[in-house]
């Protein structure tokens, strides 16, 4: 598997806004995959697709909204502007991945719509090829009861937020799959709240047998500064 997680950026506001600028923690690498997930509370329409991004899935109902988008980084992005149809409270996140197809990375998507539940499952989806990245996210509106969100099994949690009452929820997770077995993502909420769950499959470049690997080497010293570990990219 060549795909790897690089970094996440997450931010939110507790007041209502019609647009929100998320500043990325680091400028992405050109041709890496960026995936954004957004959760919105007190919203009455769809979350807008940021300029230059492509919609993966979205839904809104009863004041709750969730959406996910993707783009191939050009390496100049320092922030992303999200827009909303009316005043709402958003939680926005952008996740960067390397090692994926930069020409046509998206294989397929699936979403389970907004609903009050203790479980929402996206998928199953059967990847067209392996290896690759399965990205899943959930989002919606937490009202009077604080909730505990459980990340789908097999997935590794990314940055997200679902911390208190009367707030939006938005969490994401990744799974670097190595076979073309069907993949599902079940997000659990205890107790229930209004949320949706989505799943997207991204492919590695064809002929991905030549995989880059990272190897750590010993530290080196420059003057009084020790830089460790040194990272070397090699291909095989």
């Amino acid at each position, binding site marked *: 598997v060549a795909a790897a997680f690089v970094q996440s950026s997450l931010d939110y506001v507790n007041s209502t806004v019609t647009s929100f600028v998320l500043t990325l923690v680091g400028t992405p*690498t050109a*041709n890496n995959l960026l995936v954004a997930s957004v959760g919105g509370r007190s919203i009455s329409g769809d979350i807008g697709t940021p300029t230059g991004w492509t919609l993966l899935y979205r839904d809104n109902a009863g004041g709750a909204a969730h959406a996910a988008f993707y783009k191939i980084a050009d390496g100049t992005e320092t922030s992303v502007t999200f827009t909303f149809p009316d005043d709402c409270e958003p939680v926005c996140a952008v996740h960067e991945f390397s090692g994926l197809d*930069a020409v046509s990375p998206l294989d397929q998507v699936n979403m389970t719509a907004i609903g009050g539940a203790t479980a929402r499952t996206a998928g199953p989806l059967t990847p067209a090829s392996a290896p690759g990245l399965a990205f899943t996210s959930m989002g919606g509106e937490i009202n009077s009861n604080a909730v505990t969100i459980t990340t789908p099994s097999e997935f590794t949690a990314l940055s997200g937020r679902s911390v208190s009452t009367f707030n939006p929820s938005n969490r994401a997770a990744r799974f670097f799959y190595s076979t073309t077995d069907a993949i599902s993502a079940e997000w659990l909420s205890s107790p229930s709240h209004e949320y949706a769950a989505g799943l997207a499959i991204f492919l*590695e470049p*064809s002929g991905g047998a030549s*995989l880059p690997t990272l190897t750590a080497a010993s530290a080196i010293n420059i003057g009084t500064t020790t830089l460790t570990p040194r990272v070397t990219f090699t291909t095989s």
Partner: protein
Amino acid sequence: MVFRASNIVPQAAYQTVKSAAVQLKLNLQGAVSRMASQNTDYEYLRGLYQVLKRADDQFTSLKTTPGLAAFAQAQESDPAYNVVAEFTTMQDAISGVTAWMATNLPLSVTLRPVTEWGSSGSLIATEYTPAQTLQLRNRLDTVIASIA
């Protein structure tokens, strides 16, 4: 004097350049493999061109980072390593491909008939066989070879 917080440091620049080079190489290897085994349409060719341009633009923006050359020599434990020369080799190879595409890809193409516009996909029906993409693949191999 003020604290200079907004300029990129050699360590971050070099790390990004390495990552971009690996990402480019991985994708070009995939492209060569794909074009050798199936027909290639204009949507894919445009995507491939964009991959090359994105990488080239990021290399251009980072290669003049102050201190990058010395930092690269230290990181590679090689005082003779000339990162500027390697940049030039890599970007020349990229330019060789994009220039070749600009010159040689026919723009007199066949559009899909209107009756097929209901489905998604490229509006251009023209595709190239693996044999027809050989020269392009050879040039992509030059870029791949410039990244170790």
